[in-house]
């Protein structure tokens, strides 16, 4: 098989796995948002004990590796009777992990709405709904949207971790190809890179555009970023 032929062959082989990668990311995003919402509410309202726990959870996720979380969910939890499919373990781990980061975004978004402003809207006689729609959401979304968009890219990139528990996403499919044909290692690696560059570069530009768009001129308040 010559170079181009091999390339196309590998691409053909990896295509379904690329779709899996996208699907895993798509499913994990709402999962992460759910986690983020659950964690953020007590963090904002300062409920004793529970908000402390929520803070610890976020700190915990921020200081421990994603890979270890996945190992824990997939290899350790079965020993206490929780047994899940690799792909479920992956989605669960991604949701729990990225959710903690998103919670930081949501918290920043919440704090981007000054209390005084809410009171001002009250004084103007705005109804709860109008107040939410006209005052709170616009300010909060400015901060939240770029951060959340960024976390979507983050999830997509993190899906490659699932290869270690043999989920046939894009990165693991290159291993499978090699085991089957003992060839194409460089080609498959290039294709993986292309996949992420083609999606990630434009998406990253979009996020940075959102950030610039949503920075209120002169306010010095910038949209929340997660790393």
């Amino acid at each position, binding site marked *: 098989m010559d170079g181009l032929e091999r390339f196309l062959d590998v691409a053909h082989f990896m295509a379904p796995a690329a779709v899996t990668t996208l699907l895993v990311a798509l499913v994990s995003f709402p999962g992460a948002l759910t986690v983020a919402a659950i964690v953020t509410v007590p963090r904002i309202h300062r409920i004793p004990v529970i908000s402390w726990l929520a803070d610890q959870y976020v700190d*915990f996720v921020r200081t421990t590796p994603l890979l*270890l979380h996945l*190992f824990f969910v997939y290899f350790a939890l079965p*020993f206490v009777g929780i047994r899940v499919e690799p792909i479920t373990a992956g989605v669960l781990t991604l949701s729990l992990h990225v959710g903690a980061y998103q919670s930081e975004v949501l918290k920043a978004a919440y704090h981007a709405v000054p209390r005084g402003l809410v009171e001002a809207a009250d004084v103007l006689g705005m109804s709860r709904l109008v107040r939410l729609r006209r005052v709170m959401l616009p300010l909060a979304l400015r901060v939240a949207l770029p951060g959340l968009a960024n976390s979507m890219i983050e999830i997509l*990139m993190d899906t490659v971790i699932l290869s270690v528990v043999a989920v046939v996403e894009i990165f693991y499919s290159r291993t499978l190809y090699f085991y089957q044909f003992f060839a194409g*290692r460089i080609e498959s690696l290039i294709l993986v890179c292309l996949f992420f560059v083609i999606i990630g570069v434009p998406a*990253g530009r979009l996020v940075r555009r959102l950030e610039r768009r949503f920075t209120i001129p002169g306010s010095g308040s910038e949209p929340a970023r997660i*790393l």
Partner: protein
Amino acid sequence: MNEQDLQRLLGYVPDLAGGLFYTIVLTPIAMASATILGVLFAIGLNAPRRIIRTPIQWFIEVARSIPELVHVFIWYEAFAIMGLVLPAIAAGIGALTVVFGAFLGEVIRAGVLAVEPTQWESGQVLGMSRWTIWRRVILPQALRTVLPVWSSYYISMYKATALLGLITVPDLLFRARGLASQNFRHFEIYTIVLVLYFIVGKASLAIIRRYERRLRVDVPKSEELTLLRHPLADHT
């Protein structure tokens, strides 16, 4: 907990301690080299000529859109196929240097832009060369400005080093997998390792935050003024 449990747990210590050593040492090394690369990128991004800026911009954009794990395999596997066989640890540090160097390049560049442009002129009228102005005036201020962001990347780097276990660098996670595959006590071992990561991570964060406060001198708030006295200051 009985005698046997204790015996077993103690049996983990040499392995986990060895792994912990790698995990703790890898982070500052990789972060130091990533910071150096980031500084070089930032200087390049600030170059007056487009022919220097544009390729660096592209490189950064591409590098940061590729997952860390893929970077690691580029260095470990692709380079080897092309004839450059690197020891796993070197490949891993190289990969993390590139990824984090790309991120830090942009961060540091933002810090450079935040330095008052008049600072360049101050250096110039003192007769400083371009390089001296970078080294003595611009970079010290830019790096101080980005320190809080840098610290977050430090912790990200700490987490990312766990990927190197996948290419046989004997770090904490690698040792944990080894132990678990011997005695099948995954829950116990991974719990211990999670706690270890958490403790070391929290401690690193606390240490960094302390230095951060000490280094932040440019805009002292009044109550901090006393903290900001220079170490050389007289004790009178």
